[in-house]
């Protein structure tokens, strides 16, 4: 977790207290009084920058703030070569049959490329080639590409496509791990993205309508007639476990005592496109099918050896000091029974049942992902009303 502060400025006694209250069952007690699946309250707005194709801003209640701007350019598609379609994409294509029916794409000309989307993350005080920043950006991009829906929407014809640039800016200092914030902001920015209306036909050189009012949404709003499927951009959630309790959207203090942290990317199962003559009713949470796109495990600060620990006591070095006999034999023993009120960094792995419960809780019907997608849909609808 390189984008977070490496050193945790919380005393061992506080850590022990946090750990004890977070691992309470059945319902853990979080420092800010939230329930285990509750997100921090947030303020969101879309279409904030008229110079972009789509933009969004989200502020969490703790003050962390992010802005995402989307720009697109027309680019010539590279002529189809044998190695053009990468294996995952080919597999993905076979997997979903929902879009095939009325997607309007010729089956033999599917030369989508993951290069069509570029994502840059900017975090204050961090270089853009910092490994933590790059990892963060790739996690968001991975979900977008794995979903496959975004790249399909960027195709113009067999010779041209839209090249999309996503610029993700974190405005505040990274207080907690900013992944959920950046992912939700990206989701909203993509929902507000508009592309100029195409007036040329077939494989002609693309011509566009000058009228910006005639532009079309990249992700058409629910209930609108469209030949595209009604899927939404994916979101990435941060889930952590302490003992047997599973917490969503952890704060900085909570991450300091985490056993395991997972980034779970979720998207909706794409449905059949809405026929041109009927208008579908907006989808409700109950008939939304979620699918898992990716899981990444992230090293929490609790797994990083704090500074000032001698090698003789460090489990990472197995208690060995170069050229000396280990003085502290207890560092070599795998597990020391925990003492009440004394903080002990987690050692060893996390049981498989906990990991599967973490993913299940994110994906279950009426679970966190459902709730978040509903909330974001609310932002989208509110901005439409304002227009």
């Amino acid at each position, binding site marked *: 977790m390189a984008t977070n502060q490496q050193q945790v400025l919380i005393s061992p006694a506080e850590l022990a207290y946090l750990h004890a209250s977070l691992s309470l069952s059945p319902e853990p007690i979080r420092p800010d009084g939230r329930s285990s699946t509750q997100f921090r309250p947030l303020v969101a707005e879309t279409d904030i920058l008229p110079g972009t194709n789509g933009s969004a801003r989200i502020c969490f209640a703790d003050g962390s703030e992010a802005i995402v*701007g989307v720009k697109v350019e027309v680019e010539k598609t590279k002529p189809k070569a044998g190695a053009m379609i990468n294996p995952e994409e080919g597999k993905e294509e076979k997997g979903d049959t929902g879009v095939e029916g009325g997607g309007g794409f010729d089956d033999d000309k599917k030369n989508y490329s993951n290069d069509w989307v570029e994502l840059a993350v900017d975090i204050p005080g961090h270089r853009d080639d910092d490994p933590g920043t790059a990892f963060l950006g790739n996690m968001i991009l991975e979900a977008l590409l794995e979903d496959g829906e975004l790249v399909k929407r960027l195709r113009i014809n067999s010779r041209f496509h839209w090249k999309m640039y996503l610029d993700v800016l974190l405005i505040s200092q990274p207080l907690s791990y900013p992944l959920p914030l950046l992912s939700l902001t990206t989701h909203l920015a993509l929902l507000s993205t508009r592309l100029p209306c195409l007036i040329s036909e077939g494989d002609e050189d693309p011509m566009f309508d000058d009228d910006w009012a005639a532009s079309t949404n990249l992700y058409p709003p629910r209930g609108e007639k469209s030949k595209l499927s009604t899927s939404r951009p994916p979101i990435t959630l941060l889930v952590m476990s302490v003992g047997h309790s599973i917490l969503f959207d952890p704060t900085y203090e909570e991450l300091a005592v985490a056993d395991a942290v997972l980034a779970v990317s979720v998207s909706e199962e794409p449905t059949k496109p809405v026929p041109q003559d009927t208008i579908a009713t907006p989808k409700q949470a109950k008939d939304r099918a979620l699918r898992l796109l990716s899981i990444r495990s992230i090293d929490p600060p609790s797994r990083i050896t704090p500074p000032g620990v001698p090698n003789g006591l460090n489990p990472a070095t197995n208690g060995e000091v170069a050229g000396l006999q280990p003085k502290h034999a207890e560092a070599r023993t795998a597990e020391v029974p925990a003492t009440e009120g004394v903080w002990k960094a987690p050692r060893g792995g996390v049981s498989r049942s906990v990991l599967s419960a973490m993913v299940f809780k994110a994906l279950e019907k009426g679970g966190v992902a459902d709730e978040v997608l509903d909330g974001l849909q609310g932002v989208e609808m509110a901005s439409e009303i304002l227009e």
Partner: protein
Amino acid sequence: MLAPAKPINCPLASCLAWSACPTKKFTNCSDSELSLFRLPPSAPVTTPSTDTINRFDLYLRATSVLDSVFSHSPARNVAMPLDTSTYSMALLRVDGRRWNELRRLHAQIRTQSASDGSSYLEMGHTKVLCVVTGPTEKLASQRMASSSSSSLLDVNISIAGFSSVDRKRPSRTDKRVSEMAFTVQQSLNKAVHAAIFPNSTISISLTVLSQDGSLLASLFNAATLALVDAGIPMSDYVTACTSGSTSSYAAADDAADPLLDLNRQEEQELPFLTVATLGGSDRVCALVCESRVQVSRLEGMLAVGVDGCKQVRTLLDRVIRERGAKMIEEGAIARGDVVGAGDEMDTEED
């Protein structure tokens, strides 16, 4: 192969370059080669020789195709050169302002709750966010790096890739950006009472969301507002604006008027300078001019710029006072704590 290696701006030259490689066809040249043929619409049409006439047609086709391809961007202006000669007719600028008028200046402070100070500033369509963190203890690494210059402020500018018309990949090593950061840091350092904070650092991070001229001036103004919001004692506001001249260097036009607060279109065409002053005084603390300008016009430009800075100070001061009044209304601070009841608002108490 004699294909041109760099953009050529003369249509005839590019035609000749094409005629030198007769095997090459328009249909299988790549994008980068096509872009060589993008010319400003005002480029003089020369009569091509009979040998090159077909390729000249191709060039025309290429430009028209590309113009349609590239004109999709929502905020794209038509790439017409600014016709400054119209100014003398009605004494109105391209956006309808008179010579001494500022663009709309909108500012907010305390936009972000997690930081010590924050601000958002719009000067026309230039939009800048500023976040101040500190004063904090200098880290060991910072102490080592800045042992020679004991600077209190640490200015960091990031220009968003989507801020200009064409998307630009932000680069860390952009010399222009680091120079702007240095200018802001040096000028603000003089206004801040640095002696109060030994061994500390205040980090100012500026994010440019949209660019339409007067960028450096907006950075100055946003940073000043955020520093005031953070409660850093300063001797006065540091305010900045740009000023230019209505005719270019080459035109020996004696009747050139100075202009205040240039937008991007004007900046590209006319000589301009950025001036920052300390408070309502005439004390200039930064003056940046990167274009060729005749010395006789400099005095007028500077006078207009300094006057613009005074106007900006009044506007920024109003923003701060309105926010302060609102905080008293909300009960965030006690009524008795009002600082600087008179005209001068020297310091802000935390």
